[in-house]
């Protein structure tokens, strides 16, 4: 275990993109977990005597038009964003890997059928499906994840299929088959670890996409319902007072951008590592 951590550490340090991205992401994760737990206010607690206050020691980012503490609300929203990002990454990752490896390994008719299904799902912008799902089901984080996962896995499935098709022709795979290994074992122990690089790259770019989708939906007004708050809702709520109190809008924007940028940095860093582009620019 310690060796793994040290290895991962060295992996990060050699790559400034990955290192800075990981640092920012860890910071966001830490604050999103700790702030709602440790803060003296809850995200929904209203304080009528303390509306639209500026930054102070007791309210770091000030308060909104209902006297709710923006610092707590922003990090609570960031937590929801992270939850949505990780949840959809996990589900899409499993679905896409399974789908792609079955299609790539079996080939033939089944491959055709599976990939045509992916094409059909992919042909329409996923946001349209997601919005309809949000309207039809309850407006909570679960529906957002469900909506994102309906089409989010197709890109990964394609990547996995391509990798498996490439790998299954190689000699180590034939050797494993001749040695009598079962299909599941060949896939899990031999093929997928070799395809791990592209899979990880794809997943790291999936997370910011999911977070963006959630924020976008909440901003448009079909996202997470009140009193729960996400970064998109916070931005939308502050929009009506944008001219008087721009800081109420700027803080959630800042956190959202830092979160997305950190994930993009990680994605670019991992991509470079995997592609073996040694020259750091």
């Amino acid at each position, binding site marked *: 275990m310690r060796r793994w951590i040290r290895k991962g550490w060295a992996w990060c340090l050699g790559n400034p993109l990955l290192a800075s991205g990981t640092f920012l992401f860890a910071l966001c994760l830490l604050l999103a977990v700790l702030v709602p737990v440790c803060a003296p206010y809850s995200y929904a607690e209203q304080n009528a005597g303390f509306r639209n206050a500026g930054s102070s020691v007791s309210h770091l980012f000030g308060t909104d038009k209902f006297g709710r503490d923006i610092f707590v609300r922003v990090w609570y929203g960031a937590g929801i964003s992270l939850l949505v990002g990780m949840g959809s990454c996990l589900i899409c990752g499993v679905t896409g890997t399974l789908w792609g490896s079955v299609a790539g390994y079996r080939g033939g008719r089944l491959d055709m059928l599976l990939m045509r299904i992916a094409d*059909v799902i992919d*042909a329409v912008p996923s946001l*349209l*499906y997601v919005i*309809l799902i949000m309207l039809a089901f309850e407006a909570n984080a679960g529906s957002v994840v469900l909506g994102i996962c309906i089409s989010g896995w197709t890109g990964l499935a394609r990547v996995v299929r391509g990798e498996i098709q490439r790998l299954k022709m190689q000699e180590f795979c034939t050797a494993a088959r001749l040695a009598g290994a079962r299909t599941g074992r060949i896939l899990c122990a031999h093929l997928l670890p070799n395809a791990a690089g592209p899979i990880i790259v794809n997943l790291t770019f999936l997370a910011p996409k999911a977070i963006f989708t959630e924020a976008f939906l909440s901003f448009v*007004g079909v996202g997470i319902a009140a009193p729960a708050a996400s970064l998109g809702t916070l*931005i939308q709520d502050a*929009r009506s007072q944008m001219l008087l109190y721009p800081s109420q809008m700027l803080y959630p924007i800042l956190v*959202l951008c830092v979160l997305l940028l950190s994930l993009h940095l990680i994605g670019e860093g991992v991509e470079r590592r995997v592609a073996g582009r040694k020259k750091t620019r």
Partner: protein
Amino acid sequence: MLRYTCKRLATGLLALYVLVTAAFFLTRMMPGSPFQGGDATEAVTAAVEEAYGLKEPLWRQYGTYLGNLLKGDLGISYKKPGVTVRQVIGRGWPATALVGFLAVVTAALFGTLLGIWQALSKRRTVRGSIFLGTLLGAGIPNFVLALLLALGFGVKLKLLPIAGLTEPAGYILPVFSLAVYPTAVITKTMCHALEDELEKEYVKMARAKGLKWRRTVVGHMLKNAWIPVLNYIGPAAAFLLTGSFAVESIFTIPGLGREFVNSIANRDYTLILGLTVFMGVVVIGVNLVTDLLCAWLNPAVRRACR
């Protein structure tokens, strides 16, 4: 080529059918009646639902909807009396299409140029700053960018108009905020494609036979490197249409995106359904055209499909 065209056409039509079906049943699943609320008694609501054909069995409603769709009839708006969905689309589409088209052109132009610059520049600072730019461009959501631009340029500096499209300058901010993300993606795609091309033999060959560097890049490498960019135009269209939801609401542009957001707020189910289907048609159409174009330009795509 014919085989490939048929295949793509079939996939497109199937995708459209799936979208229509899913959208229809999802809108029927939405909680509550569209005519609830106000002082309407239950009898009145029931009567109105009867008049709109909502009391019939679901499969018959579905059949009617599909039949009308084939005739190009998307139904009437539930919340705007006497307005058909087609009229709404007819009014909103020109503004959305124009802004989207301008954004695509801007993104393709600047993305290609920046990508070439990033791939071929010998100066580290140039490459680094363009890379940083693509990172920011891809990371900042379009609605955030639109809000920041409206706040900065429109309200604080008072340089550009931030509402409506009545004057040409009104296009600048919406087009810019929509174009940034596609520009970043195209720059990255272009740069990667060119870097791959740089290592190929034909570039060496062209140089060896005495072709100027500029001619090698423009005449030979760009032709190959542009294919991935062309491939991206389809997803870009999807991004611009959905991106217009937020950007049009922020800059109060009378387009489809704003209609969509308003119809969500009003729970105007037929309008939501109609706009979803229409946008699906547009995106599937753009995807089809770019795919066919790619196949026409690049025989390898056609052969791979057999």
